[in-house]
């Protein structure tokens, strides 16, 4: 127990350190960047060292966590001694929340022990819910036939490092919310970021010059731009990026999430626009930033809904004040009292606290449920922006203008992951309706991006669309109740997508072009890159031997498809989701192997490029190997234990979530455990996933590997579809027509008004003022100055006449005094006597 308490204070310390190290690095480089070695070379070491340090700290806390809490999450390993856990929890003064007493239909539950690192007090209004027995353990049996198991309490450390603002109505802290998910994501992010840092040292080496020739940026005179290298600047941004992402992960409340959310945004802006002299890069940066703002607007609405109703942004309980999760999970029906109260404000007398009965009645009327949906949708809006979901996905492909390591970082570990992570983190707040929206958005995105990826020829763009598509998978999984599946895929995807991007970067580095049609046969020139990338392709396609072993993507994609299948069985109306998911898997395999075959297999299409291609330096391909290893085996279970990524994430599963739709009563979010353990669903899903992936692979092999089929022919046969895909479903053009053009039009009108009307007014005013000033000048010169000069002349004259009195003869002065005294006396006496006589 002692250890647990120590961990409760130690883990936040370690992770906080891991979080702040990149900030320190950023500050250092910010202050001393250009002076760090030649061309700022040392900045790379500083940044890399910092992120490595973060990684070490994360791993340390991860190991300690495992040592302390073990891995318990998997449903197949539920043989934990609840008695001892209970005793332990009581000893550590943890208080238990009684879960899901409101819903007898709840098909799963987990009791939660919140362990705050400071001694908690009474938890506000809901004190009567606290300090209860565990009787919830006994009541929550599943009516879906799933064997009830005594899951242990979820271990969460919440706390506040520094209270920014605390009042009765609002609570903003710099706080943390740490569970095993946080720790895992920390490890993932820092590991990938470390690899990317190392890789960048090699990739960005050309920035290490005093004069760098940017061939892609032509000056008006046709020559290439020459500028100073910005090596240190790049690593400075990387550090800040890592800091922001880690802060987002560790954040204990939505406000803090929002802050780091924006920081991530600004970092992506800076990095995408790293080659800011290139018009395309700066435009892409602007686009990314602006599109993200659209999503953030929704997020702010969500935040306002939360604050207005709950008065807190915190996820977990901090200092005895219940956080959002507690409020949501404790409330019967999942609608917190605050939301109910806010929704029923017109039925509440001023200053009167509604009673529990009233609240119950209102809750029966679903008051406040809309607010919950608004909050959920708002938050999700932010995630849509950040994770490039369907309406706002347009920025991500353009973001490929940044240096490739940046793309890797954005696509794998940081920015886009942030959105998915937030959805996962915020899961208990999403009502089934919101989840459905999420699922559909995810599905649309998945399909849309995958189809575009088929037609793309730019190697990075293919990867970018693949990312969008995979993100769609994750969202879909989350939306259909596959919390584990979504986050599982997030982690595995991070690894293999980072790998893929770095590999493509390596290729670009070697070929100095992005266009796949110009490549081919490169596997002989750069074997490390080629085969690591093959690993990445296999992983993302979900390759594996069914039921035996597979690449990491095999497991996560399996889980997703299983969950979608489960969902579509539970809600037959939403079966298309399943078809999209399954079809997406095939397309994924197809475009990935298309990419690989076009790049590495076959004969070189451009001999010039081929001749010049070369394997990347060690500092670049060693990270590739590391990432390849992880991409292969990150999802494997450590033999003999139940330590696996899935189990770890399962441990971080939120306490509870709503399963049944309220407005849409037929909507049912199936229990995720069901999809794992139910042989029917699982087997089906595995086979479907495997089959689709295989078919995709085979198709790609036919088209691009063996060239049995000709892709050109297909293009010519379906020119409209091809154009449709090449033009990215015309979404960008649509936006241009709907938003940009009208904006330009209005701006022109406003500018014209400004020039013609406002400027005219100001000019005429200025003319008036000038005239008045001339007049004033005359007055000043002749009247005022004349008066002053006259005074001065008089004073001067008087002084001149008086100076003769100053003879400098002391005795004369004495005489003056004496005469003056006498004269005064005489005068005074005369006046006095005169006055006397008068009276």
């Amino acid at each position, binding site marked *: 127990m002692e250890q647990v308490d120590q961990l409760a204070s130690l883990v936040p310390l370690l992770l906080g350190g891991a979080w702040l190290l990149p900030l320190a690095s950023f500050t250092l480089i910010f202050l001393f960047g250009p002076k760090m070695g030649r061309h700022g070379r040392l900045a790379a070491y500083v940044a890399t060292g910092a992120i490595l340090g973060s990684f070490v700290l994360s791993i340390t806390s991860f190991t300690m966590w495992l040592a302390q809490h073990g891995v318990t999450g998997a449903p197949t390993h539920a043989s934990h001694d609840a008695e001892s856990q209970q005793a332990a929890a009581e000893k550590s003064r943890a208080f238990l929340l009684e879960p899901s007493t409101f819903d007898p239909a709840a098909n799963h539950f987990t009791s939660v022990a919140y362990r705050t690192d400071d001694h908690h007090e009474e938890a506000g209004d809901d004190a009567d819910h606290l300090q209860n027995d565990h009787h919830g353990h006994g009541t929550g049996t599943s009516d879906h036939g799933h064997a009830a198991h005594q899951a242990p309490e979820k271990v969460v450390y919440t706390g506040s490092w520094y209270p920014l603002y605390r009042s009765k109505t609002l609570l903003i802290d710099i706080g943390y919310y740490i569970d095993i998910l946080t720790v895992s994501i920390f490890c993932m992010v820092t590991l990938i970021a470390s690899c990317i840092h190392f890789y960048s040292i090699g990739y960005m080496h050309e920035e290490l010059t005093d004069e760098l020739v940017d061939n892609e940026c032509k000056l008006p005179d046709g020559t290439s731009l020459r500028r100073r290298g910005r090596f240190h600047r790049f690593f400075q941004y990387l550090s800040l990026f890592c800091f922001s992402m880690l802060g987002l992960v560790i954040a204990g409340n939505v406000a803090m999430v929002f802050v780091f959310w924006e920081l991530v945004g600004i970092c992506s802006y800076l990095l995408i626009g790293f080659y800011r002299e290139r018009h395309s890069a700066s435009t892409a940066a602007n686009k990314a930033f602006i599109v993200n703002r659209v999503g953030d607007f929704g997020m702010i609405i969500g935040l306002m809904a939360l604050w207005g109703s709950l008065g807190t942004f915190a996820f977990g309980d901090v200092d005895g004040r219940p956080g959002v999760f507690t409020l949501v999970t404790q409330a019967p029906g999942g609608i917190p009292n605050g939301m109910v109260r806010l929704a029923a404000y017109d039925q509440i007398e001023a200053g009167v606290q509604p009673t529990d009965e009233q609240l119950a009645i209102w809750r029966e009327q679903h008051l406040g449920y809309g607010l919950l949906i608004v909050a959920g949708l708002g938050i999700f809006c932010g995630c849509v922006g950040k994770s490039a979901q369907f309406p706002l996905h347009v920025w991500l492909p353009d973001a490929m203008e940044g240096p490739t390591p940046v793309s890797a970082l954005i696509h794998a570990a940081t920015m886009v992951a942030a959105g998915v992570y937030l959805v996962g983190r915020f899961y208990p707040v999403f009502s089934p309706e919101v989840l459905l929206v999420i699922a559909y958005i995810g599905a649309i995105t998945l399909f849309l991006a995958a189809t575009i990826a088929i037609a793309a020829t730019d190697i990075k763009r293919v990867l970018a669309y693949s990312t969008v598509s995979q993100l769609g998978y994750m969202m879909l999984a989350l939306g259909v109740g596959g919390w584990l599946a979504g986050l599982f895929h997030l982690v595995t995807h991070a690894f293999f997508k980072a790998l893929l991007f770095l590999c493509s970067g390596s290729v670009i580095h070697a070929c100095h072009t992005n266009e796949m049609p110009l490549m081919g046969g490169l596997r002989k020139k750069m074997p490390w890159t080629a085969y690591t990338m093959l690993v990445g392709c296999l992983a993302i396609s979900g390759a594996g031997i069914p039921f035996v072993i597979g690449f990491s993507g095999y497991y996560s994609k399996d889980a997703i498809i299983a969950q979608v299948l489960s969902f579509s069985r539970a809600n037959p109306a939403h079966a298309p989701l399943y078809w999209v998911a399954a079809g997406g898997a095939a397309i994924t395999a197809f475009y990935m192997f298309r990419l690989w075959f076009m790049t590495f297999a076959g004969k070189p299409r451009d001999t010039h490029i081929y001749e010049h291609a070369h394997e990347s330096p060690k500092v670049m391909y060693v990270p590739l190997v590391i990432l390849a290893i992880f991409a292969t085996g990150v999802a494997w279970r450590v033999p003999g234990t139940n330590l696996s990524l899935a189990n770890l994430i399962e441990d971080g599963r939120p306490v509870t979530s709503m399963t049944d739709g309220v407005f849409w009563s037929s909507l049912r979010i199936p229990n995720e455990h069901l999809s794992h353990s139910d042989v029917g669903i699982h087997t089906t899903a595995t086979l479907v996933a495997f089959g689709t992936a295989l078919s995709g692979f085979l198709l790609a092999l036919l088209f691009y590997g063996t060239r049995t089929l000709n892709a050109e022919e297909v293009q010519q046969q379906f020119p409209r579809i091809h154009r449709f895909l090449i033009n990215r479903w015309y979404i960008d053009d649509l936006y241009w027509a709907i938003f940009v053009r009208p904006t330009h039009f209005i701006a022109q009108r406003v500018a014209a008004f400004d020039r013609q009307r406002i400027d005219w007014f100001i000019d005429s005013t200025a003319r008036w003022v000038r005239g008045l000033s001339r007049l004033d000048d005359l007055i000043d010169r002749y009247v005022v100055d004349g008066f002053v000069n006259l005074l001065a002349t008089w004073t001067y004259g008087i002084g001149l006449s*008086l*100076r*003769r*009195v*100053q*003879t*400098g*003869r*002391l*005795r004369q002065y*004495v*005489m003056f*005094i*004496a005469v003056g005294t006498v004269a005064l006396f005489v005068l005074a006496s005369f006046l006095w006597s005169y006055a006397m006589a008068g009276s």
Partner: protein
Amino acid sequence: MNLLTQPVGVSHYLVVGAVLFVCGVVCMATKRNALGVLMGIELVLNGANLNFIAFGSHVLNRAGARTLGLDGQLIALFVIVLAAAEAAIALAITLNYYNNQATVDVDHADELRG
């Protein structure tokens, strides 16, 4: 009027003070020596002091008359002390003047005349 057989009043003192004062003024007005001027100042101050003492004295005023009382003496004390300070400063100025001009004749000190 026999002065010897008549009590001394304030006026007697005032007369003496007036004489001292006028002597001081005339001294200041006629001496070319800076130190002579200083002595004239001392005389003037003494004449004034005498008046203060006279007005404050209970010996020279009839009983019950309004007098300066102790204030007269206090002011006289201050005058004496300040006169001493003034003498020291004046002497220092004179010495400086002498250092520069090799004389203490105040008629030579007219460099700032108008």
